[in-house]
């Protein structure tokens, strides 16, 4: 393969696949779409591996595994052709002024250390996929940080494509989005030091592909008779995969972007199928990793893993409400890979990412905030889309009995209880078939001193499932007069 057009083809494919990624977010956000089509997090073999080892496997593995198998042949093509974070970083690289002052080779081994240490703590039961996996990072950031902005500004053009696009009462947003934005912008901003900094230095998924890519069959070959050692390919390589002089290749870093084909003026470079011992890579992946590095990686991994059992541990006294079908708290935190899809598919904007509300270990896990959005009675979308089963796939009948919380009335500010004026909004909206909130008639004096018959709402704890629509719709300003708290039953128990 010698044609210079390949670098353009690659860019086109990358853009197309990025568009598919964007389209999938917009599609899933539509409340009547098929939520079981949320496949993106399962692209990552890293999530699959780490999740499997730590005990909570990703459900759909076919896509991720087939890409991994393809890597044995084509090398690290995923990073250059498929990865949406890679595409975003490429776009940012086009804008940012690069200093390129860091000696790249001294730090590229860090990604292997990230991978090894996360693998190590996966055996201890800590699933790091939610923090360092590029697919979950990019998915979360696009869904929870960028998309609300875009949808607010571009709601008009988007509504031409999607007829029901504006079918929300209010512009949606995600609580704590700023922290997700910080992580995302740091990942992108690192490019100021080095092109594709994240991919070269930190990405554990990239590290996994690199280990395989070293032995892949599709390799870069340089015709030494034609090569003038001008260095155009070396400076042009976004991954720093070409050794000084231009002849040798670090195959584990090459993402098959074919920029070197384009940059070479002497047609010295070609990509062919060759056996790894015939066309040798100039470097072993993770070259320069010392015993000390490994010890540091293991130690820091242990410290992160300790957050699971230490003072940051999952608090059972936590006040936050989990989505319906969520596993018991500790299992839930282990299983969730923080991809944020449940929050994207939620039709009422009820689910929001945590930061430290559910302990440090629960970062970016979904919580239900009833005052912002309630849990739609007939909807089971978050369970359908969840790639790990942290939120179980419930049937509609099961979901309608799954208790996520219980409502309590604050009598001091409730309008009928405190002012003796009829209101009943909470009773009206209660979706439970025989009403978990009923009204008691009482003769009382209202604020004008008149004897009136007033209807007082009363919650029946045995019927309430904690969907939170009462709190959401309560007309009392600010703090609602009816609030949903964690249920007295533990999460996961059913009312018959």
């Amino acid at each position, binding site marked *: 393969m010698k044609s210079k057009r390949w670098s353009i083809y690659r860019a086109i494919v990358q853009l197309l696949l990025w568009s598919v990624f964007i389209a999938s977010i917009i599609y899933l956000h539509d409340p009547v779409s098929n939520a079981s089509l949320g496949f993106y997090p399962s692209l990552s073999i890293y999530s699959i591996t780490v999740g499997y080892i730590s005990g909570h496997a990703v459900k759909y593995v076919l896509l991720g595994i087939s890409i991994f198998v393809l890597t044995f042949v084509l090398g690290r093509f995923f990073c250059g052709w498929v990865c949406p974070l890679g595409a975003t970083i490429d776009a940012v690289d086009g804008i940012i002024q690069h200093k390129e002052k860091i000696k790249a080779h001294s730090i590229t081994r860090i990604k292997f250390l990230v991978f090894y240490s996360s693998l190590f703590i996966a055996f201890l039961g800590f699933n790091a996929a939610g923090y360092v996996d590029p697919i979950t990072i990019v998915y979360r950031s696009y869904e929870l940080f960028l998309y609300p902005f875009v949808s607010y500004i571009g709601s008009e053009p988007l509504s031409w494509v999607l007829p029901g696009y504006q079918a929300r009462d209010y512009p949606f947003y995600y609580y704590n989005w700023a922290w997700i934005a910080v992580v995302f912008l740091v990942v992108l901003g690192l490019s100021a030091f080095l092109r594709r900094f994240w991919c070269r230095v930190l990405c554990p998924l990239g590290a996994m592909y690199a280990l395989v890519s070293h032995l892949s069959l599709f390799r870069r070959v340089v015709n030494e008779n034609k090569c003038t050692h001008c260095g155009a390919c070396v400076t042009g390589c976004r991954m720093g995969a070409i050794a000084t002089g231009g002849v040798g290749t670090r195959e584990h870093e090459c993402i098959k972007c074919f920029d070197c084909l384009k940059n070479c003026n002497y047609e010295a470079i070609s990509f062919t199928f060759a056996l790894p011992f015939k066309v040798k890579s100039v470097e072993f992946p993770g070259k320069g990793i010392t015993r000390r590095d490994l010890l540091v990686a293991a130690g820091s991994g242990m410290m992160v893993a300790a957050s699971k059992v230490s003072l940051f541990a999952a608090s059972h006294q936590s006040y936050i409400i989990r989505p319906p079908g969520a596993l018991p708290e500790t299992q839930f935190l282990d299983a969730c890979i923080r991809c944020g899809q449940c929050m994207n598919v939620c*039709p009422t904007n009820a689910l929001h990412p945590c930061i430290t509300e559910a302990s440090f270990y629960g970062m970016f896990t979904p919580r239900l905030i009833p005052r912002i959005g309630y849990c739609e009675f007939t909807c089971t979308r978050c369970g359908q889309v969840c790639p790990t089963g942290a939120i179980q796939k419930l049937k509609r009948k099961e979901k309608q009995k799954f208790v996520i919380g219980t409502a309590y009335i604050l009598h001091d500010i409730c309008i009928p209880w405190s002012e003796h004026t009829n*209101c009943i909004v909470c009773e009206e909206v209660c979706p439970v078939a*025989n009403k978990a909130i009923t009204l008691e008639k009482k003769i009382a004096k209202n604020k004008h001193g008149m004897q009136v018959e007033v209807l007082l709402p009363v919650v029946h704890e045995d019927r309430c499932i904690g969907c939170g629509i009462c709190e959401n719709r309560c*007309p009392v300003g600010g703090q609602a007069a009816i609030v949903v708290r964690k249920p007295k039953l533990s999460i996961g128990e059913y009312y018959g």
Partner: protein
Amino acid sequence: MKISRKKFISSLIHTSGLFVLTSLTGIKKVFGVEKTADVVVIKTEVLTEKSIYAMVHKGFDEMGGINKFVKRGNKVIIKPNIGFNSTPERAHTTNPVLVEAVASMCKKAGAHVTIMDRPVHNARMCYRSSGIEDAAKKAGADIVYMHREKFKKVSVPGGLNLDTLDVYEDILEADVIINMPIAKHHSAAELTLAMKNLMGVIGGNRGFYHINLHRNIVDFNKAVKVNLVILDGLRILTQHGPSSGTPEDIKEARTVIFGTNPVMVDAYAAKHLFGIEPSSIGYLNLAAQSGMGSINVNTYSTIIKTV
């Protein structure tokens, strides 16, 4: 008893005068100035798609023909109750076949038909699960998801509780508004019928309207005048309304009520579908007091037909 000549002649003149008067009113009848009935009630024996279509046809005929309400090229808005994300079996939302029948009749009359509501739940889910989206598609009508920024402030003439209201732009611009509520129990308003259904074209925080609800309902009807009310009494929710209820709470009333005055339609539906005295319902009382229509059902001129 003796009748004097004078008295005889005068009585003769009186009676002949009466004859003339009655014949004159007869002429009026021939020229079509006759007032239609206050409410037209159409009943059926079995609920099928065909019978619902037949009911709508019959109803429009009895009301004086669809052309009386809908002219060619008119902008017609049908406002059913799509308030909740539930399937048609649960009788929370207007029967989609009924909506389809009305929409396709208006379409045949040459109008541009739009169907809209402002649901309590997510609009996209409500339109889909209630079957209204499909019904609109079949009838060739458009559906509109109300946009939060397209409400306009309107003053309420003689408002009981509110001076101004936010009403949806399209409603204000429409030529014909057909209000198509479903009759069901409502915990706050006692019954939700045609008058209460208008909450779905009003913007703002719905929660606030539930405080002093009865006065607010009357104000909605003062701000928005509908041209025709077609009340869905096919399957009615008699308990645990408006958004829940078990299958036992649903009664098959198999009735559709047509009328031009929402107060009268509501009073009739309350009395004859639910057996509730209209004067016991707050907003009907208030409406009658402010002269929007009589709620004394016995004085209505009614046409009752069975299909």
